[in-house]
């Protein structure tokens, strides 16, 4: 079930109302049942894969906790290998097979393994990582193995975060699944406000921008220069609003039931460096990679060479996680390069800033850093959005030519720019408020600030926002970008 569907609009209130009316002991079971229903709307049979994954990691978690010495390592290895095997078969097999086949052809080897005709189960990359994280946490002794199967299954399957995260940690979500959640008016209302903002980001901003982006990226030979640049910048905001919108709907939905999910975005395009960008973008995934890949590889307490290796590997895996395509690997590699380059040149850059006296103009300096970071991120998005490497090369080589053609109508362009400006002004407001109010969600401060206003003002804002979604939302079916991962 997609969040931006009538089905979900009907499903959520029914699921929540029944949840609060049921006795506590049945609530987790109810949530599990509705989560199964939510998932089975896509491809029903794939629930079996999810069930298999849950069973493996539930059993392994218990065995790891009971085991001793090398036994525990073996159980962890079984969990990692089996979980990764599922992910490999569904997501990466055809990619590796195609590349091996090309290699074999080049080397004149006889290679005849056929591709698998499988559809990637929705959200597989998300729930495999969540499940893996749990087993590693149990192995490290950071969390006790969950005894209650329903609670564990719900930890993996809780519908708001099932398909595209945020990727939860055992230590954060499992205790909440054991707690009793009563109806809390303020939480429910906050959740609904977040959902509203999520819908606005998705159907009004992201989907509107996607119309231009899809047109240009889908017919590249017809475009060059300005239109490619505009499409890439629009894509930067499209992917943000698409995923941040999804995350806000997920966090808002969970909030209604009384659960807090982790924050996924923190105004990433206000980052003043690539390092900071990764602290603000897809936070639940980047912290997952930090804790389960980067640190086990040695983290920053090793030699420079080993640290460089850890960074490169982490970013390459991050790229590959997004999709089985060389373009995603290129995107990951480029961000890895940015990251290393920014660390290596930190001293030189600081010296240069002092030399040109830019450091004396703090606000302007911040602005320049933000702009440069944004440009670098946009350049990397070309790799992420392009269908293949030929397209990437086409875009890069045609960026400087043909600057007379916008590639879209002027009203379309103006409308998109207005939406981006609106988003940035909301982010500025949120950014300025964040110094005063601590918040878990991307819009928490603004929502809190609005809630302090008189009732007429509040309701006018909510009614206007809903009407904007109703009338300026895009009707075309544009799936959430992160559904494909």
């Amino acid at each position, binding site marked *: 079930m997609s969040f931006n569907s009538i089905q979900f609009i009907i499903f959520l209130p029914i699921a929540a109302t029944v949840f*609060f009316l049921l006795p506590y002991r049945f609530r987790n079971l109810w949530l599990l049942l509705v989560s199964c229903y939510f998932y089975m709307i*896509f491809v029903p049979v794939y629930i079996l894969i999810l069930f298999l994954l849950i069973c493996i990691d539930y059993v392994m978690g218990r065995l790891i906790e009971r085991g001793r010495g090398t036994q525990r390592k073996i159980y962890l290895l079984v969990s990692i290998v089996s979980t990764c095997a599922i992910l490999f078969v569904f997501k990466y097999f055809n990619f590796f097979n195609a590349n091996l086949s090309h290699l074999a052809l080049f080397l004149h080897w006889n290679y005849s393994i056929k591709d698998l005709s499988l559809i990637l189960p929705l959200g597989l990359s998300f729930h495999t990582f969540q499940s893996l994280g749990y087993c590693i946490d149990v192995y490290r002794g950071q969390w006790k193995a969950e005894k209650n199967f329903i609670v564990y299954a719900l930890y993996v399957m809780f519908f708001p975060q099932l398909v595209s995260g945020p990727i939860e940690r055992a230590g954060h979500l499992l205790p909440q699944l054991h707690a009793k959640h009563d*109806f809390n*008016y303020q939480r429910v209302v906050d959740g609904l406000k977040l959902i509203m903002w999520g819908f606005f980001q998705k159907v009004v901003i992201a989907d509107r921008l996607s119309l231009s982006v899809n047109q240009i990226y889908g017919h590249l030979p017809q475009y060059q220069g300005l239109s490619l640049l505009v499409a890439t910048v629009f894509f930067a905001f499209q992917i943000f609003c698409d995923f941040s919108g999804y995350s806000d709907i997920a966090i808002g939905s969970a909030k209604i039931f009384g659960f807090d999910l982790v924050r996924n975005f923190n105004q990433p395009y206000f980052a003043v460096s690539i390092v900071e960008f990764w602290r603000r973008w897809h936070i639940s995934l980047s912290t997952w990679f930090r804790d389960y890949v980067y640190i086990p590889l040695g983290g920053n307490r090793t030699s420079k060479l080993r640290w460089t290796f850890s960074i490169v590997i982490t970013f390459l895996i991050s790229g590959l996680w997004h999709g089985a395509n060389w373009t995603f690997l290129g995107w990951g590699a480029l961000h890895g390069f940015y990251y290393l380059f920014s660390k290596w040149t930190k001293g030189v850059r600081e010296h240069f800033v002092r030399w040109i006296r830019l450091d004396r103009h703090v606000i302007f300096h911040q602005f320049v850093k933000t702009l440069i970071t944004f440009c670098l991120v946009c350049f990397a998005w070309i790799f992420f959005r392009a269908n293949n490497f030929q397209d990437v090369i086409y875009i890069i080589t045609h960026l400087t030519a043909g600057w007379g053609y916008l590639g879209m109508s002027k009203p379309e362009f103006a409308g998109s720019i207005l939406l981006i400006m609106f988003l940035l002004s909301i982010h500025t407001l949120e950014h300025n408020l964040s110094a005063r109010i601590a918040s878990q969600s991307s819009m928490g401060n603004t929502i809190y600030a609005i809630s302090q206003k008189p009732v007429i003002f509040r309701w006018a804002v909510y*009614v206007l926002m809903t*009407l904007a979604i*109703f009338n300026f939302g*895009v009707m075309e*079916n544009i799936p959430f970008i992160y559904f494909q991962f």
Partner: protein
Amino acid sequence: MTLRNFILKLLLFILIVLGFQVIVARPVEYPRELIILDKVLQNGFSIIYFGDSTITSTSKNDPTTQTTPEILWRMLPKSKLWAITHPSLSLDVYDAYAQYILRKGYHPKFLIFPINLRSFSPVWVSNPNMQFKSEGFIIRYKDTIWLKFYHPLGVFKYFEPPVSKYVFDNTKISYKGKTYGYIKELNDQVKRAMNDETRLKKQFILDYLYTLTPHYGKIQSMLRLVDRLKNTGIDPIFYITPVDFQSGSSLIGDDFTQTISANTRLIKSLLAERSIDVLDFSASLPAEAFMWREEGYPNEHLNLLGRYFLAKSLVEGTNLNNYR
């Protein structure tokens, strides 16, 4: 605040939003056919001929490009006949048109509906691109308050096809327990076919080998349409469009003829139960009357010979001639 009070407050909010939506709703773009229908009915046209590409396609080898309605027009020069056509109109949309005609209080005498057997096949019925849910909604609710909610419903994917691409691709094509394959598989075989015969055979299977039942969605739409028009003074005229029986049976054999016969029998018997006669032209024309070989895929598009036969049969088989 309790759950009950919250729900009441939420309902109040929803009512306010819906109220404002009625005031500020964006205008809806009507299908061209609906605007034309309004005009012709306001001008007192008494025979409306609905149809898809089976009545509008013409062959490049035809001496004249007159479509079936145009030929019919010439045969009934004094009648006020108009054709409402769209390449993919089908019974669901015809039903929406009938609902609209009745709601607006128009009184045509005859509504002619072709029953295109290919449009009953799973390839059409389950095809996400052939559902026309939003067109049906606009036609049904034009000039009503419900149309104010067209955009919100569209934004939340109300008009999305009920079947996903995955389900469509994996729909089984079978007849009498014999499985011919799945839609995607057969379509791939069509694309990869080494010769014309194999390709055409697969296409005939995809388009015609299915078993109709009274519960089939399109059959239900047809019956709803009949029930809707009952006792309204508007006579529906149904006819089953000619099918290239000759080519189909030579490529597929008995399964083809038996399927078409069984399906047409069912349609006729269900309409007969409601005292409606159906003109069955399914096996009336030889292969030479079809023009699909020009287009490269089997269909029910007719050349001039076929179109002339169809128009003449419609005049002879009904009392259109006696009505002006």
